[in-house]
C-alpha cells in the first residue's frame, strides 16, 4: 500500500507522520513518500511566526474548532517533554486588542488563563479600548518542520524533491492513495474557486525584550490586516498584511513601511530593534478547510484533500492530520474488504 503525500509544509509533514504512526504497524506493507518542490526553510510554514491562535470569529465550523483544540492539547502535552525545544515549542502569553467590545472567541477555554484586559493594561495600547489576555503556544516552523522531517526519516519515509503537475503523475509512479497537502497552490492540481492566496508580509527583528504577543484587530481592515507582534525564540515577527488574490511573493516596500510604522506605534520599544529578515508568503485562504476523500479517475484511486488552512495552519495542523489519517483508515478498511491486493501492470 503506497501512500504519497504532496506538500512538505506543516500540513504535509504532520499528516505523513500521523499516518505512519497510526498505520505502519497495522499495515506492514504501508510505504509512505513525500513529494514537494519546496522543503523547509522555504515553505509557507517556515515564514509564519508560529503562534497558536485561530481566527477570533471563525467559520463556525465545529470540526475546525475541534481540530484546533486537538492540536493545542497535543502540543501542550509535549511541552514538558525533552523534545520541546527541538520542536520549537514553548508557551507564550499576550494581548489581543480591539477597538470595541467583542464576544469571547470559540477558543477561550482551549487556551490557558483567558481573560479580558484591565483598564491599566489598556493604557499600554492607546487607540484600543477592549482586549483579551491569554497564554497560548508557539510552534516555530523553522524548528518544527526539521523535527518532523527527522521523525519521518527515522521511520523510513522517502522524500522526493519534485514539482507535481497532476495527481495522475503520482499515481503513475505507483501510489495507491495521494494525500493533497499543497496549500495555496492546490488549485494547480485541481481548480478550486474557493481557494485563493492571502499574501502576507513580515519583518523579523531582534527584540528579545519583547516577551508577549500583541495582535490587533480592526474590523474595517479585515483579518490579519492590522499590526501584530509575535516574539519567537530568536526573532520577533512583525506583521499585519493580508491581501487576498495577490500571488506576489516578493517583499513590498510599501508593506514594509506600513508594518514598521504601525508596529512601532503599537510598541514604541521596537524602534531600536535591528531588522534581521523580511519575508512574504501566501496563506491558503478558503472559507473552510478542505478535508475530504475524492475518488479520481477510474478504479480505486483516491485523493485525500487536506488544504486551505488560511492563516491557522499551525494552529489546526494536528487535528487535521488525525482526521486525514482517519480518512486513510477508511480507505484501507474498504480496500482490504475488496480482497487480496490487485496486481499492477
Amino acid at each position: 500500500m503506497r501512500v504519497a503525500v504532496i506538500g512538505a509544509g506543516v500540513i504535509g509533514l504532520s499528516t505523513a507522520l500521523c499516518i505512519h504512526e497510526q498505520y505502519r504497524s497495522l499495515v506492514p506493507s504501508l510505504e509512505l513518500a513525500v513529494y514537494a518542490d519546496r522543503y523547509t526553510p522555504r515553505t509557507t510554514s517556515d515564514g509564519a511566526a508560529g503562534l497558536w491562535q485561530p481566527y477570533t470569529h471563525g467559520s463556525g465550523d465545529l470540526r475546525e474548532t475541534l481540530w484546533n483544540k486537538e492540536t493545542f492539547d497535543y502540543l501542550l502535552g509535549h511541552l514538558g517533554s525533552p523534545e520541546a525545544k527541538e520542536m520549537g515549542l514553548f508557551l507564550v502569553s499576550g494581548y489581543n486588542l480591539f477597538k470595541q467590545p467583542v464576544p469571547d472567541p470559540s477558543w477561550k477555554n482551549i487556551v490557558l488563563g483567558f481573560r479580558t484586559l484591565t483598564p491599566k493594561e489598556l493604557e499600554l495600547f492607546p487607540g484600543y479600548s477592549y482586549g483579551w489576555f491569554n497564554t497560548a503556544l508557539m510552534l516555530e516552523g523553522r524548528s518544527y518542520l526539521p523535527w518532523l522531517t527527522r521523525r519521518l526519516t527515522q521511520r523510513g519515509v522517502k522524500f522526493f524533491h519534485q514539482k507535481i503537475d497532476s495527481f495522475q503523475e503520482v499515481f503513475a509512479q505507483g501510489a495507491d492513495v495521494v494525500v493533497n497537502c499543497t496549500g495555496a497552490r492546490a488549485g494547480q492540481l485541481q481548480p478550486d474557486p474557493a481557494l485563493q492566496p492571502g499574501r502576507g508580509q513580515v519583518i523579523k527583528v531582534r527584540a528579545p525584550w519583547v516577551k508577549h504577543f500583541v495582535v490587533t484587530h480592526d474590523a474595517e481592515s479585515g483579518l490579519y490586516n492590522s499590526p501584530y507582534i509575535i516574539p519567537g525564540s530568536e526573532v520577533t515577527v512583525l506583521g499585519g498584511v493580508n491581501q487576498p488574490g495577490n500571488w506576489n511573493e516578493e517583499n513590498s516596500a510599501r508593506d514594509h513601511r506600513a508594518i514598521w510604522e504601525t508596529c512601532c506605534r503599537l510598541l514604541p520599544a521596537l524602534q531600536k530593534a535591528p531588522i534581521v529578515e523580511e519575508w512574504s508568503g501566501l496563506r491558503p485562504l478558503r472559507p473552510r478547510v478542505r478535508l475530504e476523500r475524492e475518488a479520481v479517475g477510474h478504479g480505486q484511486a483516491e485523493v485525500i484533500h487536506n488544504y486551505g488552512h488560511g492563516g491557522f495552519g499551525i494552529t489546526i495542523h494536528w487535528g487535521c492530520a488525525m482526521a486525514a489519517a482517519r480518512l486513510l483508515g477508511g480507505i484501507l478498511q474498504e480496500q482490504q474488504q475488496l480482497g487480496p491486493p490487485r496486481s499492477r501492470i
Partner: protein
Amino acid sequence: MAALKVAVVGAGVVGLSTALCIAEAFPACSLTVIADRFTPNTTSDVAAGMLIPHTIPGTSLHVQKQWFKETFTYLFAISNSAEASEAGIHLVSGWQVFKSSPTEELPFWSDIVLGFRPMSEAELQKFPQHRCGQAFTTLKCDCPSYLLWLEKRLKAKGVQMYTRKVANLWELHSEYNIVVNCTGIGAHQLVGDQKLFPVRGQVLKVRAPWVKHFVRDGDGLTYIYPGIHNVTLGGTREKESWNLSPDPSTTKAIFDRCCSLEPSLQRAQDIKVKVGLRPSRVCVALHREVLSQGGAKLLVVHNYGHGSGGFSMHRGTAKEAAHLVGECIAALQGSSLRAKF
C-alpha cells in the same frame, strides 16, 4: 554663594537612581558619584531585577507600597518608550506557585502589578507539585543595561563619576557639603551598621530564549526570571554569609530545582554562576544625620539596606533620599544666611 557640593557614595541601582533624583531636583548642585565598584561589578549586576517586592518587616506597609508604586510607575513609562531596550526595562508575565497555601491572600503589591489573579486549574497542571498560584504581569530590569543607562543620563546632566574606595564618610568633609550614603552592604564597614547583614544569593544566568514567562516558588528559593539576554535561575538566601565564591553543589541544586519547575531548561546553554550579597536590614536606612568634628560639619543622608528589594523600591527610596538632600540644602542655606549677619 557657591554651588553646594553633593557626593553620592555607591554606584549600584540605589546610588545611581538617588544621584539621578538629586540631579533632577537640584540642578544647581555640583553632584559627584564615588564608588569602588561600577557596573558590571556591583551587587545590582547580579540581581535579576524583577519587580516583585518582599515585605520588609520594619517599614510600614503603606510606605513600602508607596515606594513600589513609584518605582513601578516610573519603569512602566520607560518600558513603553523608545528607550526601553537601552534602559533594559520590559514587561514579563508569569506565575508564583505555592506548595502550601500562602499566609496572605493578597500581597500588598497585587493591585500595582498588572492583571493579578489566581491561577486556574488548567494552568496549575503545569506545576503538579504545587496546589495554588497567582498569575500576573510585572516589570523586569536588565540590571547591567539599566545601570549603564542611568550612568549615561547622569553624565548628560554633568554629574562626575570617580572610582575611589571611601574608608569613612568623614574623609569627604573637606570636598563636599552633603554626602549621600548608598553603599548597600558596604555600609556594614563604612558606617559600622551592625543591624545590616548579608543574605547571600547565588544565581545562574543561562541562555534559554524560548522561556518567556517567569516562574517563582512562593517560598522565594526557586525562581526563573527571563531577561533580555539571559534567564536568571535562582537561588539561595543564606543569612550572614559573606562568601562571594560560587558553590558548585549549590549550582547543581539550583539548576535541578528550576528544571523541575520548567523542564525545557534542561536544554539551557552558556551557564554562568554569580553571587551577590543582599544588603539586608529590618528596615531600609533612610534618614539624615549631621557628622561634626571640631568646628567642621558634614551633612549625611543614608539610603541603604534594601535587602531583596533594591530594584522593587529603588526609585521610591531615591526620591525620598533626594527630598532629604533638599532638607540638607535648606539647612545649609539657612545657616549660611545666618552666618552673614
